[in-house]
């Protein structure tokens, strides 16, 4: 989804809406996956995902294509919404949340694959939140390194380095589980 959300002035509303609609359809599941990995709460993830798209829709006219891709912009909004949700939780009492079921898709897999993915899921749980976020942006949301860098507000090479470290740590954690 590389198309800008802005359009010619005369048909700006319709073209802008269409562009946003394409962005929404291509990113809905990715945004949910990323937010769910941050919050680890299905209900909260749904709430925050909806809020993020709502915010993005309201701000769609303020999107500046020169400052990055639409997906990076959208994930930046989703990230802020998720972090705000985490902040609210920090101020409130500990919430009882149902963790997202990471291994639900592996029921039909063979036993070895299921065990391996269970080990990966457990290793992922043990990562630092920032590392887990990097992996979520890369593999759950499917962002490129430059988009990850844009979302996190860091350099692209820095994002690549951090991601590499996170993957190494995840691999070591998987080895530990094994």
């Amino acid at each position, binding site marked *: 989804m590389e198309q800008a959300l802005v359009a010619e002035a005369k048909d700006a509303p319709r073209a802008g809406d269409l562009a946003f609609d394409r962005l929404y359809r291509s990113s809905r599941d990715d945004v*949910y996956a990323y937010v769910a990995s941050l919050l680890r709460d299905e209900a909260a993830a749904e709430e925050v*995902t909806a809020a993020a*798209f709502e915010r993005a829709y309201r701000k769609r006219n303020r999107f500046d294509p020169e400052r990055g891709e639409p997906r990076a912009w959208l994930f930046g909004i989703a990230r802020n919404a998720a972090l705000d949700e985490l902040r609210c939780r920090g101020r409130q009492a500990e919430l009882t949340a149902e963790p997202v079921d*990471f291994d639900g898709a592996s029921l039909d897999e063979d036993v070895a694959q299921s065990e391996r*993915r269970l080990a990966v*899921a457990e290793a992922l749980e043990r990562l630092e939140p920032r590392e887990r976020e990097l*992996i979520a942006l890369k593999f759950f949301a499917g962002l490129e390194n430059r988009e990850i860098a844009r979302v996190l507000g860091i350099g692209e090479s820095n994002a690549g380095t951090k991601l590499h470290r996170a993957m190494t740590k995840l691999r070591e954690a998987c080895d530990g589980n094994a």
Partner: protein
Amino acid sequence: METPRDDQLAEDLRALRPTPHPQFATELDKRAAAGFPRRSRLPRISFGRLRAVRPRRLLLPAAGLAAIAIAVTTAFVATNESKESEGGGGSLLSLTAPQAQESAPTTPPVETAGEEATAASGAASSNGASFSYDGSGRYSRSSDRLDNRSVERSAQIVLGADPADVAEDAAKVLEAVHAHNGIVMRSSTRQGAAGEAGARFELLIPSAKLNDALAALSAIDEVRSRHEATADITAPTVNVGELLQDSKARIDSLLGQLEGAETESEREAVEAELRQERRHRARLRAELQNLQRRAELSRVLLRIETGAAEEPSGGGAWGIDDALGDAGQIFAVAAAVAVVALAILGPIALIALLAWLTHRAWVRRERRRVLS
């Protein structure tokens, strides 16, 4: 179990990707199709509705309201200023009137019981004096008098007349003054051609009858101008009354000492002090009477003019110069109002900006910290 390779690890991670519940996805699709209608966890309030409006849409009504407020304030201030400038002559009159009153002949008070009673009765009839004499040698406050202010009033009237009518109008003036128990302090008349003939009167009219007297005087001939002014003299009246009370107490004390004096020298010393205090008391009483007279009698300056009426500076038909003058005045007032508004709104806006920046920095810091 072997360590997953990178591509296998990536594949496993993608397989672990959380997926939204179909029902949630359907609902979100509907909301997306509807343009994400705003929903709130909290009950919608008017402020929330206001926040939903784009800032640009709020800008125009806000600017309109600000412009209306500035225009109303400007008009209000300009109106007040014009009223004050109109009353400026009155203020001058009120400043000059006491001097004229002080120059009025006053009877030196003599310290006798009968005259004290006369002075007291004068005080009692005063229209605002705060002290009265109770007939037993004491000046006391009267509660009902404290409710009334001691106010000195003055007026200035200019009548226009034909040269042939000056004498007749002057007679009518005197008649009106006498009819209202007034006093003619000074008067002069001039006969002659238009512009030369005229008359001038300095009058003292009982304040209680001033309105009636002014109406009668205004009815004599064409009124070219009429100004009235007031000055509150309650404070000096109260002050002199209190000093008078103190002086009376001091005299009573000295009289007691005089009765108890045993030697001739002691008696003479007390008598000397008593004489001095009585002179002081007489001065105070005269001052009080003068103040009471200023409240009781209003000074009226009346002139009878002949010939064309004097046009005040800038007078006549309203023209371009007047329009430019008025426009300049309105512009000056508007600029002053804008400066005052800026002086008020500037710091408020600065504080709001600082608060917003602080809040934003705090939110960013908290977001960074929440993942730590």
